């Protein structure tokens, strides 16, 4: 009975949505409201000179709509706080090897290959973070790639090994770095004479502005990348963590 009602509801919703789609502006048309909007054209034409980013998307997420991204880094920090509140952090310091059940028995070949690959993945993610304004990618993408590399490492070598590599002492202070960077850049914008989150400070000479904007953009990228990576790794470790660790460790 209940499932029939829900199926009817979903069918009705699908019908409604398809009805709307039939009346929506045609896809891919340069004349439809989204593509012909003056908002879009300005972003496409002026993004390079106004935000000094070749990649218009980076210009939008960090500069034009930086406030959204500030919200986004708060969301991911919130997720970390929530996961830690629910599951707790993995134990600081030494975990006895026999209590570490996250370790997967694997052959020498796999271990060597993973140990060989992970540095290169991290190198690639650093490139992604730093070149966000030039090529596809940016802070969060790079952070996610670092997170993914640590996932590979953890599945093969276990939580103990990987939390030796990126210890809690390192992650703990860096988890909030994304928001703190944004806040600092925002306040610097105020000091520079603009509004919150102004990159091109009105108070300084015009020929200095491009450099300031570029460096602030890179600073924010690094903040988001490091913060995002640390948050993802912490969430992962907190979920892998076993209850036994607490029982066994002194």
């Amino acid at each position, binding site marked *: 009975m209940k*499932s029939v009602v*829900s*199926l009817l*509801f*979903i069918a009705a*919703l*699908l019908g409604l*949505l*398809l009805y709307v*789609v*039939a*009346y*929506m502006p*045609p*896809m*891919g*048309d*340069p004349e439809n409201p*989204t*593509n012909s909007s003056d*908002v*879009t*054209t300005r*972003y*496409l*034409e002026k*993004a*390079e000179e106004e935000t000094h980013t*070749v*990649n*218009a*998307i980076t210009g*939008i*997420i960090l500069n034009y*709509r930086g406030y*959204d*991204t500030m*919200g*986004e880094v708060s*969301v*991911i920090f*919130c*997720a970390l706080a*929530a*996961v830690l509140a*629910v*599951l707790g952090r993995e134990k600081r310091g030494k975990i006895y090897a026999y209590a570490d059940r996250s370790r997967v028995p694997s052959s020498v070949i796999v271990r060597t290959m993973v140990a060989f690959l992970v540095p290169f993945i991290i190198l690639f993610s650093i490139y992604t973070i730093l070149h966000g304004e030039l*090529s*596809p990618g*940016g802070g*969060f993408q790079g952070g996610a790639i670092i997170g993914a590399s640590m996932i590979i490492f953890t599945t093969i070598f276990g939580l103990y090994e990987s939390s030796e590599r990126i210890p809690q002492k390192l992650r703990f202070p860096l988890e909030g770095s994304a928001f703190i960077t944004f806040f600092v850049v925002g306040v610097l914008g105020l000091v520079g004479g603009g509004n919150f989150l102004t990159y091109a400070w009105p108070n300084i000479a015009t020929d200095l502005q491009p450099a300031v904007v570029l460096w602030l953009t890179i600073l924010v990228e690094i903040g988001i990348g490091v913060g*995002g990576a640390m948050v993802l790794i912490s*969430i992962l470790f*907190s*979920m892998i963590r076993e209850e036994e660790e607490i029982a066994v460790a002194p």
Partner: protein
Amino acid sequence: MRLLHNYQYVAAMLLFCIGLYTIIVRRNIIKKLIGLNIMETAVFFFYISLGYLDGGIAPIRVGGADPSRMVNPIPQALILTGIVVAVSVTALALALVILLYRQYGTLDVDRLFRDEEKEPESGTERGGTA
């Protein structure tokens, strides 16, 4: 006719409804979360299709690319935020799933909410604070 031309929107709506179906009807809570993710990606797909331009190029100005041929960058910028939000919600939901399984020993909603009709005993709020 418009429906055929907007076939990507149709696909996005279809995926959206598959996701919603999973959330409402499937009883396993991990399945429900997979449904949630399908729903989210469907909406992201919808957004990106919104910004598409026939014969467009990526909005990156390399080598004097023509801005009038670039696809709309705004939906892409929004969805970047959306993806982060989606992974955050999933992480929290899975953490809750792990805790629920530890306490109830089941992933089935019907079993999970079976004893819900019983009123909570007094003082439950303080009990079990591990």
